[in-house]
């Protein structure tokens, strides 16, 4: 392994720490806009990781993926979410069903759990344990945000975090999927956020609130 590769590997491993920080901060965030900024920051960290890989492996494809991450996840989606928040003119708190302290503890537990979960795989696959754990932690965090936050927009953010986790898992284990597939996934993601935004407005217009835990007319 050359010096550059080694340096990149070290940098990647330590950058996992930033991802854990964003996850923990999301757990304690009280406002939707804070969560959007954190999602942007999280995506920026991942973009930097893709760039590092692109540099080390001299891969044009990876540069293209990095550009996509920056364009879609760091700029377009947070921007679109901010616009939705502004247009909605609704209260901005996340209305969690757990307190901030509880959320942070649950999140820490999830991080610990993901380290245990990946330990056997990391050895056999010879990939970095911290990064793989970060990927699983993002996945779990996304799921946790979706079930514990009541606002419709927070479910969208939870889904995006979950998707970030899957992206990171692909990145650490296989250095990403073929470019065409990545582009397709990004396109789906963008369309998905667009549609969910549309539905958020519809929910507000038909129900006069955005609390999805109160949507329970359909049962059984």
């Amino acid at each position: 392994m050359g010096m550059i590769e080694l340096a990149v590997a070290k940098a990647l491993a330590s950058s996992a720490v930033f991802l854990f920080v964003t996850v923990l901060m999301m757990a304690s965030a009280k406002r939707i806009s804070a969560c959007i900024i954190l999602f942007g920051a999280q995506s920026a960290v991942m973009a930097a990781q893709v760039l590092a890989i692109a540099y080390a492996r001299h891969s044009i494809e990876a540069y293209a993926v990095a550009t996509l991450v920056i364009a879609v996840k760091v700029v377009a989606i947070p921007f679109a979410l901010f616009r939705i928040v502004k247009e909605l003119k609704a209260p901005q708190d996340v209305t969690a069903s757990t307190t901030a302290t509880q959320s942070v503890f649950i999140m820490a537990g999830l991080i610990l759990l993901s380290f245990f979960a990946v330990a056997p795989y990391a050895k056999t696959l010879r990939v970095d344990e911290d990064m793989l754990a970060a990927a699983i932690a993002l996945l779990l965090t996304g799921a946790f945000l979706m079930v514990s936050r009541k606002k419709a927009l927070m479910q969208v953010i939870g889904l995006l975090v979950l998707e970030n986790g899957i992206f990171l898992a692909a990145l650490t284990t296989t250095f990403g999927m073929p470019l065409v597939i990545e582009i397709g996934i990004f396109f789906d993601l963008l369309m998905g956020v667009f549609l969910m935004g549309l539905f958020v407005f519809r929910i507000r217009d038909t129900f006069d609130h955005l609390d999805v835990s109160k949507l329970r007319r359909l049962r059984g």
Partner: protein
Amino acid sequence: MSLLVLLLIPSLGAMLVLGCKQPRHATRAALLIGALEVTAIVHAVWRIRSAGILQTGRYLRADGLTAFFLINIGFIFGLVLVYSVGYLHHIPAGRFSSPRWFYSLFFLFLFTMIAVYLSANLGMLWICVEATTLASALLVGFYNTEGAVEAGWKYLIVCTVGIAFALFGTIALYLAAVKSGVSPQSALDWDALMTAAPTFGPVRDLVKLSFVFVAVGYGTKIGFVPMHSWLPDAHAEAPSPVSALLSAVLLNCAMYALLRFDAITSRAIGSGFSHTLLLIFGGLSVTVAALLMIVQKDLKRLLAYSSIEHMGIVAIGVGLGGTLGLFAALLHAFNHSVAKTLMFFVAGDVRESFGTLRMKGIHGMARSLPWTSASLVLGSLAIVGMPPFGLFISEFMILTTAFNSSRYGIAILVLVSLSVVFGALLHHFQHMLGGKPGNAPTKLKLLPSEFAVMGICSVFLIVFGMRIPGVFANLVQRALAVLQ
């Protein structure tokens, strides 16, 4: 070239229909585009019959399995389009809810589903399955009522999360292929994966992990219990033609994706693991759906649970495996799609006539709406698996497979569930059909187009109950050859 046409017609058609400001023009354009697309599908299937495999570029590919499902989607789609023409005239105008928006989204939905069938690459396949959710979410929320918006939101969120799991599973399989020496560029291609699958032995844990995630992910879209929560809501709140498409085509589309993964997994690590998982999901779906059908109050929710039950039976057929099991599963998927289309047409007619779908509020239908009632009786006899209808044959074959392979537990589970379903439907429908007409229906006669499509469905079900035409059996056999 030929495969690209299948995708171009609906995508360009969607834009064209959107440009028609007059509802009358939009309807005509939709019918024309629909006829073109069905012709193109038949032509493509004909060419697959002679050529075996069609490939266009790197990412579009069609084989025997594709041909089988293409015929399915072409047939059902044609019927639903003709039915929609009569159904659509009463839709309240609003944003995204005029006929042109309906047809446009309809073609977009069709485009994504055909793209699923034509994907040569499992990554592409995932992208297209996710696109089907996005394309149909607006159709589910089409009426813009409280229920429709809630159902649309739930559908969008639950299916997107479910499908995200399938992406994780796809990545795990990709990783397994790359670790086994397949070049990263082609490690998601179906051909390359099927060729390399026998060498996946050293990474069998990864293959197992992949299949679990894929089964949960695409299983969400198929409506396996316990990931089915979106399905009854979406089916009940969507306009009836859309419910028919969701139940008859979309569920099969997701099942198709799972079948591809099942074939690769079976070839890589033996069929034991994946088939056991399918049997568990199938058994759970059949039992839970049958029990929930007893307590339903809304006709379309009842039909939705019946779809879950039937997809469970298909999964059991695949899980039992062997040529007969798979043959029966594919046949059942097709028969179910025709029967359920008929039932949703009936439901649409009931809604139009009585203005409600609550089964308690409807009495004396047999007298006031004789033809609709006849279709209802025929359709429900078909979906409970009575002879002489197509579903009897396929269910009988699945039960035979179960007994032959000494899986008595599964066989008894299916038999008991089928009896429960029979009882539930009898209980619900005798109230609706019999008795004195309470609330007078507002619409007494079927439109000729509605009459025609219901007739075609009924004739199909009876013919397939008598004997399976040779051409069709051949089509299924070619589909099986791809999977084994």
